[in-house]
């Protein structure tokens, strides 16, 4: 995982770059107090590696000490300057993560969808039942959501939208299903490979942080089709960029438009007008058909079930209207934060501004589209400001307003400080970070820098103060033990068992980021079982070099393990339990399962 000579060369290069960067006038950087120590002891290096990344891998602590903490931070803040050919090569194993959504929809979800529709038709037309009219595919939901097996609740594919014909799946459908599952599989495995292997550790941590901030759930309908591009093109390029850019990219992403329903949000007046026109057209067509087909029995009788269903569909479309979900969460979760003083009227006004921000053919993986016919073009008042730009610019103005609002600065600062420093964010630091956000107009590199170079970040209280999330626990265990990650699938499964399935947070709040969110009886036992499985070589594809880690159970092996896995922090009791271990595997399990290893 860590190739020492290569790393060394890079480190030198990085130091040179730092010198250049520090020479440039930094925004606010001079005014903010810095807590970055000039020379770092091993514990400080470990702290930095635990917070900027997923914990130290063998050799990392010495490397950071050697290049200095300041240089390491600077390097991590510029992931584009880090070469990582080993990771690049490794990611070749996941070909779908570079595909376009159109390709994913056509080649991966399309075939299974088509076969499911066929199977459904076949079932509807089974000879033991009276013949039925061939109609639309049954799995379509009112809002254009498809229920093609991906609609899983609580991560269990057997629930909810599992297609009813599952027991009689044809071999073709089984093959097609495997193909569609590959998309999410590749995403999950690539995410873990990156977390474990990437030299751009901070970027990986930030991708996780910002994906979670702008959470979408893979189990909701078409979101899964858009997930690959969402992480790759919407979140990842912006995590150290400008907040407004990321906010805008999210607002236009089909994943979010679908997840929070904005793609169906329509100006109610426009919906009525459209439906009335459709209804009139349908009636004219029926009249023409009656005239043409009189006596020949070909016309669709106006009272037929088909005609009634068509009328019903149009009536439903007529009832379509404003959907407030995105408008509300945009303010509550993406920008201002709850209790920031906005009202229900603001929610409605924001929702109106985003009418017409939709998806072109959502069922076929189409892309963002602004549909002027769905848009409410009347002026709106948001947070006391009149929005009267018209068309798509209405939404853009709202994003401008929210992205530069002081409440947003404070909300984002609070969340970042909570993640990187402590569950209870120190108020003074939040304030300084919020100032940087305001002064730099949301430059997330500067905002992040303000957090991770602060005296609070390096303070004694912050050290090992955070309980690891399941993702941090699993990845840090693999990194710390230097395990060889041939196949990340067992880690995907482990995260499910630990209650944190990748891309599996249902609510738009994403996962919680405090100890209380992750410490529970069942989850704790699952952590211990993970430690046991990993140490006993029971995770197929995750190979631990036990002999290298602990050649025997001797005192010196115990000491070495406490250094390697627990960075020297082991309670007397933990050491006593390790002294009783009867095998190196037990020794490793007792270290990885210990309370000390649950913290970062």
């Amino acid at each position, binding site marked *: 995982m860590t190739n020492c000579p290569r790393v060394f060369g890079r480190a030198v290069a990085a130091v040179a770059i730092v010198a250049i960067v520090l020479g440039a006038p930094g925004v606010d950087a001079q005014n903010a107090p810095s807590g970055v120590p000039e020379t770092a002891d091993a514990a400080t290096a470990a702290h930095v590696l635990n917070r900027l990344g997923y914990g130290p891998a063998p050799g990392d602590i010495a490397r950071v000490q050697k290049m200095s903490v300041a240089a390491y931070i600077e390097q991590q803040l510029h992931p584009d300057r880090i070469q990582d050919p080993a990771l690049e090569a490794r990611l070749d194993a996941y070909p779908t993560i570079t595909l376009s959504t159109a390709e994913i929809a056509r080649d991966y979800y399309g075939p299974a969808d088509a076969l499911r529709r066929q199977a459904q*038709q076949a*079932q*509807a037309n089974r000879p033991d*039942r009276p013949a*039925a*009219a*061939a*109609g639309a595919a*049954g799995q*379509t*939901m*009112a*809002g254009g959501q498809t*229920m093609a097996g991906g*609609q899983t*609740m*609580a*991560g*269990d594919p057997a*629930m*909810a*939208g599992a297609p*009813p014909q599952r027991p009689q799946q044809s071999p073709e459908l089984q093959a097609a299903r495997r193909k569609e599952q590959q998309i999410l599989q590749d995403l999950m495995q690539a995410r873990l490979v990156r977390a474990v292997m990437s030299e751009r550790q901070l970027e990986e941590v930030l991708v996780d942080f910002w994906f979670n901030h702008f959470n979408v759930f893979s189990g*909701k309908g078409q979101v899964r089709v858009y997930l690959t591009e969402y992480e790759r093109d919407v979140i990842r390029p912006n995590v150290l960029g400008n907040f407004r850019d990321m906010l805008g990219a999210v607002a236009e992403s089909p994943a979010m438009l679908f997840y929070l*329903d904005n793609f169906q949000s329509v100006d109610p007046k426009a919906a009525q007008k459209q439906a009335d026109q459709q209804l009139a057209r349908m009636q004219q067509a029926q009249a023409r058909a009656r005239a043409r087909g009189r006596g020949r029995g070909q016309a669709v009788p106006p009272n037929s*079930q*088909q005609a*009634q269903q068509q009328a019903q569909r149009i*009536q*439903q479309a007529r009832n379509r209207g404003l959907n407030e979900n995105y408008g*509300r*969460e945009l303010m509550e*979760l993406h920008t201002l934060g709850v209790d920031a003083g906005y009202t229900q009227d603001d929610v409605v006004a924001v929702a109106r501004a985003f009418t017409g921000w939709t998806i072109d053919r959502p069922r076929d993986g189409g892309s963002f589209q602004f549909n002027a016919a769905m848009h409410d073009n009347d002026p709106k008042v948001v947070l006391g400001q009149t929005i009267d730009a018209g068309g798509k610019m209405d939404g853009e103005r709202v994003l401008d307003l929210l992205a530069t609002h002081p409440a947003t600065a404070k909300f984002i600062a609070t969340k970042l400080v909570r993640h990187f420093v402590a569950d*209870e964010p120190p108020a003074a630091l939040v304030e300084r970070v919020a100032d940087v956000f305001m002064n730099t107009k949301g430059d997330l590199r500067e905002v992040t820098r303000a957090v991770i170079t602060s005296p609070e970040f390096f303070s004694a209280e912050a050290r090992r103060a955070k*309980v690891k999330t399941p993702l941090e626990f699993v990845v840090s265990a693999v990194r710390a033990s230097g395990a060889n990650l041939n196949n990340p699938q067992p880690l995907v499964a482990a995260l*499910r068992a630990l*209650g944190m399935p990748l891309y599996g947070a*249902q*609510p*738009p*709040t994403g996962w*919680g980021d405090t100890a*209380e969110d992750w*410490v*529970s*009886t*069942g989850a704790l*036992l699952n952590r*211990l*079982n993970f430690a*046991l499985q990993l140490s*006993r070589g029971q995770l197929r594809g995750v190979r631990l070099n036990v002999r290298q880690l602990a050649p025997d159970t001797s005192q010196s092996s115990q000491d070495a393990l406490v250094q390697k896995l627990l960075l020297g922090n082991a*309670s*007397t*009791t933990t050491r006593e339990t390790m002294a*009783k271990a009867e095998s190196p595997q037990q020794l490793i*399990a*007792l270290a990885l*399962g210990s309370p000390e290893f649950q*913290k970062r």
Partner: protein
Amino acid sequence: MMNRRIFLKNGSLALVSLGFAPAFFTRAARASQARRKVLVTVFQRGAVDGLNMIVPFGEKAYYQARPSIAIPQPGGPGGAVDLDGFFGLHPRMASLEPFFKRGELAIVHATGSNDPTRSHFDAQDYMESGTPGRKSTRDGWLNRYLHAREHEEASAFRAVSLTQQLPRALQGRSPALAIDQLGRFGLRAGDRGDMMQSSFESQYAAAADELLKPTGKEAFDAVKQLQAIDLTQYAPRNGAVYPNSPYGQALKQIAQLIKADMGLEVAFAETGNWDHHANEGPQIANRLDDFANGIAAFAQDMGDGMADVMVLTMSEFGRTVSENGNRGTDHGHGNAMLALGGSVKGGKVYGAWPGLEREQRYQGRDLAITTDFRDVFSEVLRSHMGAKDISGVFPGYSATKTLGIIGS
């Protein structure tokens, strides 16, 4: 910094360390005081067709709207099981008829969420968060109930979901367990499992972290409690036969937990594959057979124990009144819930019946809702579970009426 949960846990730890009653004494003492009530919730995921589950055979419009999938009137072949001369059970749910006749099973019809969504995802989410229309609620209504009534004697098995993952309804601040198989709960440490278990136990007993330490104790207490009962030798009583489905086995394990007096108060089980857009007839028949037989077996197995237990079923929304072109039904609105238990005033179908004529339907197509699902949940928490203040369970909502499904 110290939250209520830690305070409670530390409080109970203090009691034990001061030499007060060990767990099994308090358990016995509690049993003699107030008998613990248990709520077993069953979620039918995928939106069961409530009109073919609890059949309004007295409605002409029902038969008009469903020429090929309606359940025939009672008496004929494949006919509904008559409940009250107007409603009947799907014939494959006949195993529940005796409970209705004995007054132990009640139905609430035309109930559900006032939110218009027809998305499974959103509707399930709303039914579990208990806040229709509000997506950012992070915790579930069952967890908020548990939190509102947190008590020092709460066992680690106070709230258990027999699923792989904790459902939304049970997520939140109050501890709740997801256990898909009781036999798999605990450490899987191989040969020297005992040694490893006690090693980890002492590690966590000495943990400096204010949350890890009490949680570790909780975890190992729970493991030991479960180890004390022989899970493999379970024989259901009264000739009860549980379906072999994961759902049936989940109900069986809930019965095991209740009978073992593990301190269970809220249990959760789920059953899927209800989304019958095409060829509904034979499919829903098999699913309802499994659904009803599971509940019947559970009630039979519990026997007199049902006096303190209530099973409550729910599904995210109902289905269209009219069948579609594929002899199935599409996503609708109102649905039916079943409530079974000793405290239930059964033998009755509750809820105002809105009728199925086109003008009586929701948006001209679905069964209208006359009872908000939160009214049913509120009543169950108050009258069955004995909660006095549930204002925090359904924030921003106060029940509009009491149906009276729970009696004394």
